[in-house]
């Protein structure tokens, strides 16, 4: 991933500009009377400075050596499926209830990991049940009941 370091450096510079703008809006105060924006402003300025240094270093590094393509790039499909499923779990948890959404989600995530169907259903059912018993009964944690199953 070395060949993309210069883009990441520019990303940090952009983030630092955002942080500095918002920090000034918060009022950094003065050194003798520091305000709420002082530390964020300081971190933003330093982040921007080091981002620029990284950008320059990355350029020099690219000139000095041949770039090698790193093995194992980003597997976007699995990454997206796993992350979207977690977001979906979060938003459907209250609506479907813990038991139903956990069962569905476990089936989905096992399939993302290419687990066979029989193992998927077995693992999903057993894990969901055990987690419910452990957390809801032994640790007395209240899980959402959902509109369908009501338990």
């Amino acid at each position, binding site marked *: 991933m070395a060949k993309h370091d210069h883009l990441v450096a520019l990303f940090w510079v952009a983030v630092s500009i955002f942080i500095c703008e918002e920090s000034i809006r*918060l009022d950094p105060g003065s*050194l003798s009377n520091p305000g709420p924006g002082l530390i964020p402003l300081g971190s933003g300025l330093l982040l921007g400075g080091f981002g620029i240094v990284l950008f320059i270093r990355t350029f020099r590094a690219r000139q000095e050596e041949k770039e090698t393509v790193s093995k194992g790039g980003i597997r976007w499909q699995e990454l997206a499926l796993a992350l979207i499923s*977690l977001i979906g779990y979060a938003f459907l948890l209250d609506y479907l209830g813990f038991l139903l959404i956990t069962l569905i989600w476990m089936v989905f995530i096992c399939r*993302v*990991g290419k687990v066979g169907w029989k193992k998927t259903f077995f693992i999903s059912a057993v894990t969901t049940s055990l987690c419910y018993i452990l957390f809801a009964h032994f640790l007395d*944690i209240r899980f959402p009941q959902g509109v369908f199953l009501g338990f």
Partner: protein
Amino acid sequence: MDVLGHLTLGFSVILQWPNPGYCFLGVLVGTLIGVLPGLGPVTTIALLLPSTYYLNDTSAIIMLSGVYYGAMYGGSTTSILVNIPGETSSIVTCLDGHKMALQGRAGAALGISAFGSLIGGSISVAGLMIGAGLLAQAALRFGPPEYFALVFMSFSLLIYLSSGSPLKATIMALVGVFLGTIGTDFITGEPRFTYGSLTIMDGIGLVPVIMGVFGIAEVLVNLEGEVKRTVIKPPKFKNLLPNLRDWRDSIAPIFRGTFIGFFLGLLPGGGAIMASFASYAVEKKISKHPEKFGHGAIEGVAGPETANNSAVAACYVPLVSFGIPANVVMALILGALMIHGIRPGPTFIADNPNLFWGVVASMYAGNAMLLVLNLPLIAVWVRLLAIPYSILFPLILLFCVIGVYTIHNNIWELVIMTIFGFIGYMMRKFKYEGAPFAFALVLTPVMENSLRQSLLMSEGSFGIFFSRPIACTLMVAGIILFSLPAVHLLKQRAFGGQIRKDQRL
């Protein structure tokens, strides 16, 4: 200092039910996660953090501590038998431990690893008992400038000791500082970067961030391809006991590893990983037969495995004396203490004797339990290694989800965890380390508080950090450490030498 009297108090605490149970549970879970890939002590302790709401403070810290040093024991099992480190601190054990196993000496490797860990762990607990008290006395002389200087030096040391690029580690620390400011300003009460969200009004939340960056991200990276594992059959129990020659070759590395581990465990950014690498390097350097290392030298197992356990107890010293965590695990232990309304610092030991001495005594008890768990029950742990990762990872993800949700029953914290899971994944891909980021996130409130108070005291002059002896010493040390990578590079360029990849900024 009546150490024996306090230790007696500690043992009376650890023998009171349910403390022995929680100690055993902690070391059992620790060994389990040490053996299994995918879950480390950081993620596991973050996962267990919400459940400590339901425990008393002593039981909670005893259990979480057991997880930490239990993981050090468990990690060596997979390193030796499978050549895959169960924990990062057991990476070097693969070099010689697995070679010993291939030569039919798995028993000696496992045995010396367990006994070395017991010896190192026990001696360093003694160091904790004495060192914490002494440092706590020194910490009473610390004011805001000294605390800021200590945090600055800690950041510098962490960045200097980072295994990757110091420049990237610095950037991660600065991002952590910024995220640490999100929430309500503690002086003016003004919300910062919350944009009306109630979820982050008290800050972004350590547990969702840690679970995302270390837990979810680890799973996402491991999903890319399962490493094939060939497990060497574990030896019978009678073959696990090292013979006289093994002891003769290992006793000096064990004692050296104990002191290396203790010293490095004291340092912010040091800890078990650094200790094990340093011990291996020292043993190889001073050995009369360095060519044996990497081919089954028992010294290459004894020293590092002792050092990583010894570092665990040492990590507690800065936490209980100054309230400054030495690494991410200690930051989570700090979180657990704060859940119970306890803020560690110079008066922590005096104000909470049952808690401190109970935890100290639990480390002795826990190390003894681990010897029993790791040697006679080795075959049980080996069976777990046969579980394919395709079955483990959904369980890990589910535990992360439940762990975060149970903090405040807030689905937005699950969203935060997911976002940081993506960020953590990208950090790994672009070779940014998580430790400086997490460290900065935890220490920013202390750093900001001490900096703003110092500037108020000095009416805006930074000279206050250099006019007080302790603060000045720490600031100068921090500046030197921070500048060292750049100085090395400039020297190389000036003398026209070839710059190694690991010397790049």
